[in-house]
């Protein structure tokens, strides 16, 4: 028996198997991908506008109660030309980003603590989950009392909204790490912090990213709730305030315009930032990319 011959034999057999066994990944053609990623939002918007036009055409309510798309567009145009829309979007986005960034840091730290120490999890786990069933507006008075009418108060509300999602996302990500990975890590020599750094955190990524994504939605919701109520010229115009001004002026066109802006910005960030990141990560791991 010649070792070299056998090796060659095995090698060619393996190469044949490798060629046949490799899973075939079906790459969608570009046209189909575009159709899937661009068409839905367009259809959705068209659908929305159509429903709206029908409602207006039915004259169920006077147009000062349910304004026409044209009214809303005009209202948007007017505030745009005054620079109020740009300022509002910029202010709200800036706050959302800063708030979200801080929430990500705090939420990650909290999630890690909860995942690693059973006692911490036991003590504050239910509390953290519970926070999600309190509306953000409930925090506004407390936040204002603590921080006055400052960005600080707004950030506190945003944090209280976003941190639980992020912490819980990381926690559930960690709890879903197959124990096998931890065993492999230990066999390879990863213990303690090394294990967290090289095994636990990367393995928990899918749950964590899901948490971050949901955390963004909550941060945005909470920010709007906070901006609706804390109101000071020193804080500058914001989207939430635009909505509030619309209500105070009984200006339904402005109310609708503000709701649309909030929706577009909130969903836009999710679709443009979080979705692609999550998709790429899931795809790199060969995981199922969800329906959305």
């Amino acid at each position, binding site marked *: 028996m010649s070792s070299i011959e056998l090796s060659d034999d095995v090698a060619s057999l393996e190469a044949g198997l490798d060629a046949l066994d490799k899973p075939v990944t079906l790459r969608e053609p570009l046209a189909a991908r575009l159709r899937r990623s661009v068409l839905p939002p367009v259809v959705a918007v068209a659908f929305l506008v159509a429903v709206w036009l029908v409602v207006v055409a039915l004259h169920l*309510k006077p147009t000062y*109660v349910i304004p026409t798309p044209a009214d809303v567009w005009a209202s948007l145009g007017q505030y745009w030309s005054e620079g109020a829309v740009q300022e509002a979007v910029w202010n709200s986005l800036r706050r959302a980003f800063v708030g979200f960034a801080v929430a990500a840091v705090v939420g990650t730290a909290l999630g890690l603590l909860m995942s690693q120490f059973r006692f911490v999890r036991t003590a504050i786990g239910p509390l953290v989950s519970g926070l999600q069933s309190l509306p953000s507006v409930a925090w506004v008075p407390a936040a204002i009392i603590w921080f006055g*009418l400052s960005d600080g108060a707004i950030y506190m509300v945003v944090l209280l909204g976003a941190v639980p999602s992020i912490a819980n996302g990381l926690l559930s990500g960690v709890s879903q790490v197959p124990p096998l990975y931890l065993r492999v890590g230990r066999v390879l020599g990863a213990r303690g912090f090394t294990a967290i750094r090289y095994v636990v955190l990367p393995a928990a990524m899918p749950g964590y990213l899901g948490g971050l994504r949901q955390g963004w939605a909550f941060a945005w919701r909470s920010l709007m709730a906070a901006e609706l109520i804390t109101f*000071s010229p*020193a804080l500058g115009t914001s989207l939430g305030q635009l909505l509030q001004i619309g209500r105070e002026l009984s*200006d339904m066109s402005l109310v609708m315009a503000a709701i649309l802006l909030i929706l577009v910005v909130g969903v836009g960030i999710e679709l443009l930032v979080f979705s692609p990141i999550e998709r790429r990560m899931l795809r790199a791991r060969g995981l199922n990319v969800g329906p959305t």
Partner: protein
Amino acid sequence: SSSNAGDAAASDAATLRLGYFANITHALPLIGIANGTYAKVLGSTKLETQVFNAGPAAVEALFAGAIDAAYVGPNPAINAFTKSNGEAIRIVAGASSGGAQLVVAPQYTDAASLKGTTIATPQLGGTQDVALRFWLKSQGLSAPTTGTGDVTVAPQENAQTLDLFKQGKIAGAWVPEPWASRLVLEGGGKVLVDEATLWPKGAFVTTHLIVSTAFLTAHPQTVAKLLQAEYDTLQEVTADPAKAKAAANDALKALTGKQLKPAVLERAWNNLTLTLDPIAAALQTSADHAVEVGTTKKADLDGIYDLTLLNALLTNSSKPQASAAGLGKE
């Protein structure tokens, strides 16, 4: 008078849905609804009441057709009128006047000392907000609606204002009763400006009765009865102010679970004037001021008043007529 006596029965509405606030400035509906005067005068028309926290919500409800009439401040009334191109509502009477003050922490003694501070008002572009900005302007202080000026005007909810004032986070606030009194008595503030001193005869409107135009057209008789109920309540209050005060406080307790402290009630009551006169002249002036300080654009208020029913009632009671100041039917 525009209504035909023969149509009286036909124009009675089956129900009247009336909105008001659980607030001392709404003393007339508070007392009259609680003691049954409103229901009695309305007779066969069933009275349904709604309590609101703020004017915009009441206007939303009016727009939605969820209520027919509401007691609100002048600003929501103006907004409801102008945003609906003069269609949605009419002011048919007043309910109270006066009772707004600029209360500041004791260390502020004059306008100049307020430079660099934050002062709260109840609502951006609201009567008190406009009054504060106009007054600041007259004192040479700028208070822009966005960005920073000499003084930061921060519109916010009154309860929040009290908290922030107690903590020293704001220098003061231009607020209506009972908040002015609470700032003084509970927050240790002092009155820097009493709004009454800025108006001729100290009269400016605080609470209006607005009615949806559609309801007014369909059921003038019912609106007349509503005015009558308010008038009767006013007579009762005038006859026995002490009893009225207690009744108002009881009504507050029933609606919100809390009463005003006697001292607050006392002080607030004395600052307020209950009257059916909508004090139309002040409305236009206030609107002009709003344009001047930049909180709103020039608004056409022509036709906002329909005081024909009120004046008919006043004539019957041998009282002086109320003026629409050229902004509608008298």
